[in-house]
């Protein structure tokens, strides 16, 4: 694209002013309360500085004042779109630091709910990305299927958004036969719907023109900024914690790690790639769910006699897990009491959004929206 160079030429010929625009915190497409300070020259964006913190609750401080198990409901409210992932990340960290082994059935249940939640989260990303690019109907279609997932999760844990289903030492409740039949129904139905989404939005020519070659994130820049998850995989880097460092039962499951391609006729790492990686991950989620349903062993779902979680003093663990948005890590340090000395949350969106200034330069205002949407951020997690 030579937009930037032509902009420079116009700047030489005609003396024009730059316009500083405040995008957010109340703006329809900043996905929450992100504020971006845009410096534009007409329609072309010269600089963008994200400003975060509007949703800051200092959850890490709250964690220091609660006993280990009590912090689980708060993790739901970080990445509120995929709360199960946050539950799992925190519980894994505490279990690692306290040396708790959880029963196999609980592991399967954990994977089922996190993958279901990943589907819900990616559907939201799909729908809102449609909205960002101006197509309203895909959003409703995405939410229609997301509703099915939420109904499933509601059946299992009684809540639709803030689950706190995964607890330290296991999970909150066992599946019911009703749940399993509904889950199988969903697994059968969903691949058809993915094909429909692809027809409606992914391969729509206007949509492809809007996203191809826009916001190209080279792999080295992505890694330098600590970008992880689908956004990194969109740049062609095949890194997925579920594959590289299988936690829970992911080593027993077969699934692909989709990465960005050039099949759409654009560079690797553009918005379309980041978006399409998510769409292909939906298919992989269905695969994982199918395997989990078949392989799930009987048994207890909670550690017997968990007792008090009281790790040794100065014990620490830094557990990473692949949440819908990237590598979510919890750094738990114990001081030998019932409450942790420090819980640090490494939120994937925090690093993902920090790369924004790097990739919006020279793009147009409409592209800024497309880029923010393709990074798929959740502000609850960035600000914590």
């Amino acid at each position, binding site marked *: 694209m030579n937009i930037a160079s032509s902009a420079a030429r116009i700047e030489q010929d005609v003396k024009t002013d730059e316009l500083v625009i405040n995008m957010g915190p109340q703006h329809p497409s900043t996905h929450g309360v992100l504020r971006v300070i845009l410096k534009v020259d007409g329609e072309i964006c010269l600089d963008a500085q994200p400003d975060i913190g509007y949703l800051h609750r200092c959850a890490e401080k709250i964690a220091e004042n*609660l006993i280990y198990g009590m912090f689980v*409901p708060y993790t739901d409210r970080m990445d509120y779109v995929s709360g199960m992932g946050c539950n799992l990340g925190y519980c894994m960290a505490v279990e690692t630091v306290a040396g708790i082994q959880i029963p196999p059935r609980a592991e399967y249940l954990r994977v089922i709910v996190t993958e279901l939640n990943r589907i819900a989260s990616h559907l939201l990303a799909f729908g809102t990305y449609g909205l960002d690019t101006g197509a309203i109907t895909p959003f409703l279609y995405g939410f*229609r299927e997301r509703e099915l997932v939420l109904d499933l999760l509601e059946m299992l844990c009684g*809540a639709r958004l803030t689950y706190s289903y995964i607890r330290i030492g296991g999970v909150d409740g066992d599946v019911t036969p009703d749940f399993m039949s509904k889950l199988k129904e969903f697994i059968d139905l969903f691949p058809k719907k993915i094909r429909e989404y692809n027809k409606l939005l992914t391969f*729509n020519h206007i949509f492809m023109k809007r996203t191809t070659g826009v916001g190209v994130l080279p792999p080295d820049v992505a890694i330098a900024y600590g970008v992880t998850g689908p956004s990194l995989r969109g740049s062609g880097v095949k890194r997925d914690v579920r594959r590289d460092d299988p936690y829970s039962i992911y080593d027993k499951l077969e699934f692909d790690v989709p990465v960005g391609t050039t099949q759409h006729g654009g560079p690797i790492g553009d918005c379309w790639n980041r978006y399409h990686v998510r769409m292909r991950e939906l298919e992989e989620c269905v695969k994982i769910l199918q395997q989990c349903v078949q392989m799930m062993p009987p048994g207890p779902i909670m550690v017997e006699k968990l007792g008090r979680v009281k790790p040794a003093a100065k014990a620490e663990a830094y557990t990473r897990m692949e949440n819908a948005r990237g590598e979510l890590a919890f750094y738990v340090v114990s001081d030998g009491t019932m409450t942790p000395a420090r819980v640090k949350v490494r939120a994937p969106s925090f690093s993902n959004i920090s790369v924004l200034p790097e990739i919006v330069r020279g793009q147009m205002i409409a592209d800024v929206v497309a880029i923010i949407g393709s990074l798929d951020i959740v502000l609850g997690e960035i600000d914590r």
Partner: protein
Amino acid sequence: MSSVTAYFSDIYRGLSTALVGMSITLRYLFSRPVTEMYPDVKPMTPTRYRGVHVFEEEKCIGCYVCAKACPVECIEIGVVRKGKEIKITRFDIDYQKCMFCDLCCEPCPAHCIHMGPEFEKASFTRKGTILRFATPKSLTEEEKKVEKVAKK
């Protein structure tokens, strides 16, 4: 691909994919809507639904375990103990704070508090969101002295 063919294939693909998308939306125009008519038709909440608590006062032993387990300290309990006799004078839950996390119900030794199916407890005042579960009791002066009210 030369730029001429690219130009024409762009136009062709623009039109054809638009028509494909329009055929999908047209199909849904004639399919049944999925809207739930919420205020008219109440949705069925599943059995494990975590709504407003259900409190069984006769079972409660006033042990404060639920209040201690609450991460947000939204439960306030008042108990009068006279020997083996237990009188629950207060059992208030502040639904401004409650996260509906179910952590209070798990440790209860008497199984007297559960999450219920009710979820419509909006109120116009802050006070209205504090639900008092215990039946009101008149206390004697002596009982008032031994009444123990605690949040945690």
